[in-house]
């Protein structure tokens, strides 16, 4: 297992290298530069800015410098938009915010999604099933861009339970976490239901029942554990996406997270931030998938890593 983890982590290096080359090339290939303004700057001023940020160097050298700075100094470079702030500062300030919100959303997604899926599977074709899946379809169909304002309208403007937006107190986290988590809970609920329905018809479940095990033990120890495998598979990318921030929810609830940097850095041609956010996402994705792969071994005894 240890060797497997090390091997997977080492594989991260070529993956990140490949992603960095592609991203760097694409970012620089897109027309428009970081210093194009509505009030165009004189060429002399642009030349000063390019020199300041090292953009006067050949592109290959810019890439080599960039990678060297990351590898030896863990320095992801400056932000062209906010003078005095580096990409490292952006990670340090905003990643914890997105991660907290993402974790809260995942907890909500699991707490609502799993029981709903299990209940719907166990009470298939009953009112509970229809109700559960109705809720799930609502969750999948209503995007955060609609759900967010609805939550604000009801819980902030009408009931005054929570502040409209902002960050820094637990009350400010509730609505954005729900706006993020509800959709994911719907996905988990549907997947859990489908998976459970498949698993509870398997032979080994019949065998477990024939052995005289209680229904609770059959469901929790045998059925649910196996039914969780597909859910665990989607949890990997879900974790990576939620923990690195989501643009729309952060925008609606004025959350100082990472999400907006994925979008605004591209608009601003803020190359180091574009590179930084994409590499960050890649690292999270690879690590989350590794974690998922490792949980397979616990969920399914047939899976062994060497």
């Amino acid at each position, binding site marked *: 297992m240890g060797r497997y983890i090390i091997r997977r982590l080492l594989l991260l290096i070529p993956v990140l290298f490949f992603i960095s080359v592609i991203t760097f090339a694409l970012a620089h290939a897109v027309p*428009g530069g970081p210093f194009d303004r509505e009030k165009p700057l004189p060429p*002399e001023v642009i030349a000063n800015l390019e020199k300041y940020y090292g953009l006067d160097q050949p592109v290959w050298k810019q890439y080599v410098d960039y990678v060297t700075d990351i590898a030896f100094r863990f320095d992801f470079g400056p932000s062209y938009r906010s003078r005095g702030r580096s990409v490292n500062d952006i990670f340090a300030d905003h990643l914890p915010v997105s991660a907290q919100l993402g974790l809260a959303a995942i907890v909500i997604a699991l707490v609502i999604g799993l029981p709903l899926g299990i209940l719907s599977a166990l009470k298939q074709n009953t009112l509970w099933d229809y109700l559960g899946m109705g809720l799930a379809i609502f969750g999948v169909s209503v995007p955060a861009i609609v759900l967010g304002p609805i939550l604000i309208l009801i819980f902030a403007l009408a009931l005054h339970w929570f502040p409209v937006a*902002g960050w820094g107190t637990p009350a400010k986290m509730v609505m954005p976490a729900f706006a993020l988590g509800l959709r994911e809970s719907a996905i988990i609920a549907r997947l859990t239901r489908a998976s459970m329905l498949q698993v509870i018809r398997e032979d080994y479940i019949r065998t477990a029942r024939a052995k005289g095990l209680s229904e609770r033990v059959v469901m929790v120890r045998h059925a649910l554990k196996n039914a969780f495998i597909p859910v665990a598979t989607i949890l990997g990318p879900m974790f990576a996406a939620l923990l690195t921030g989501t643009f729309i929810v952060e925008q609606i*609830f004025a959350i*100082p997270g990472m999400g907006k940097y994925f979008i605004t850095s591209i608009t601003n041609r803020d190359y180091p931030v574009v590179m930084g956010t994409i590499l960050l996402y890649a690292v999270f994705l690879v690590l989350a998938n590794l974690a998922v792969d490792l949980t397979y071994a616990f969920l399914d005894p047939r899976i062994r890593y060497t």
Partner: protein
Amino acid sequence: MSKRFTLVLVVLMVLAAVLSACKPAEKLVTTINLNFATEPPTMDPGLSTDTTSVDCVNMLFMGLSRLDIETVETKPYLATEWSVSADGLVWTFKMRKDVFWWRWDPATQKAEKKRPVVAGDIVYAVRRVANPETASDYAYVDYIIKGVQAVNTGESTDLESVGVRAVDDYTVEFTLTQPAGYFAAIAGMWTNNPVPREPIEQFGDKWTEPGNIWTCGPTYLDVWEHENKVVMKKNPNWFDAKNVFIETYNWAIVNDDATAMAMYENGELDVTPPPLSDMDRIKADPTLSKELYIGPGTCTYYYGFNTSKPPLDNVKVRQALSHGIDRQKLIDTVLKGGQKVATTFACPGVFGTPAEDPNWKGIEFDPAKGKALLAEAGYPDGKGLAEITLMFNTSAGHQRIAEFIQQSWKENLGLDIKLANQEWAVYLKTVNTDAPQIYRMGWCLDYPDENNWVLENFHTTKSLNNPKWSGANAVEFDRLTEEAALSNDPAKRKELYFKAEQLLTVTDAVIAPIYYYTSVVMTKPYVERTYSKAGHQEFWYWKVQAH
């Protein structure tokens, strides 16, 4: 009798005077909740370019002059007075002696007095902006100061050669490359605000973080949680602190205008610009409509014509297009923010603009005239006209405007215009290198003088000249704007700019001005505030009544 009567009368009068002076004290709240719609990219005066950064700089620093928010005139601020040499090249500013640098410690909530703000701080600021290593966007604004351009472009490395010097601690002198009647405004621009050498050398780019920064303006910087909030505290030692009533300025950083509006309605913000989509609701609401203010802005929205691309190389076609835009209907049905129909490039309030001159007659909506011009150009009802593309940067707002104008040209001139859009950075590249036949653009004042508008945008060699304007009228336009820039005679300058605007918007119709922006804002009734015509607010003079 008469003595006693007189005595009683006098006592009564004195009593009345005393009582009238004893009005119940105004009950004020010392906190205000405001919103920056975006994270300030910087709070460094020498690096600021956007309105949010400039708002921060104005709260924290002082310029030599300031623009009066009512009259948009240049008034003394850190300078008490200034004088100009006979040749118009040397400007001398006498500075206040009661302004100091303060370092606010957010941990102890105490301010530490550092030292007086002196002429050397201005000299340091101007040289720092000129220094190419600073890479200041707005360094070019100072190119009018002797030696700045040479230093900034690397021709010279001698910062001492920059035409600014401290005559004594409280007198600073600028030497210009050419006379410029508007220089007092340039000297007071945020770019040239005094900055303290000590924290800049100690902390580098991080000198503007709370705890590091030294400030000399109406407030201290207490908190700057990036992308989340900024808190500023009143500087009770500021020279005009007696007129500052708010102690704490809480700035949220909310990009989404619908969210900001919800926060306003929930009492979390005291002031916010309303979203366009809510304008009808706000105007119909008896409470919200009273809190809505629509006032003049400092920007112009326009369509530029690339005069080198057929059929826009024909002046009559350009004039016809300009006549074919129903600007008022656009404002009433699409924009709904009380914008004003634009007939000039520079908006009202800018020195030299003929926008409010009774003798000015720009191109107005006149479909019949537009059609006639098209026929004269050889395209009756648009027949035979080559395909025309109108391009704008991708945005729902610009799209709605473009679609309206497309329809306006269809109905009024019988023209079918193609629309195209590009992502912002790509669009800027396109417009600045090879502008489309018709392109959308806007301009906001940096300083309230026509020089900042006509010369900096359309001079055929001193600007990018995106419309690729050429010919005799373009040469004449260059001459007029250059002469106006050099002149110290306000009346003559006005006359020259009148003619320049005439050539730009009417005679050659190089652009079609569409509307002057307005400042649209919601303010809670308990906030006593001013509304600025100068493009920046003086938040520190606002009051918040108990509510």
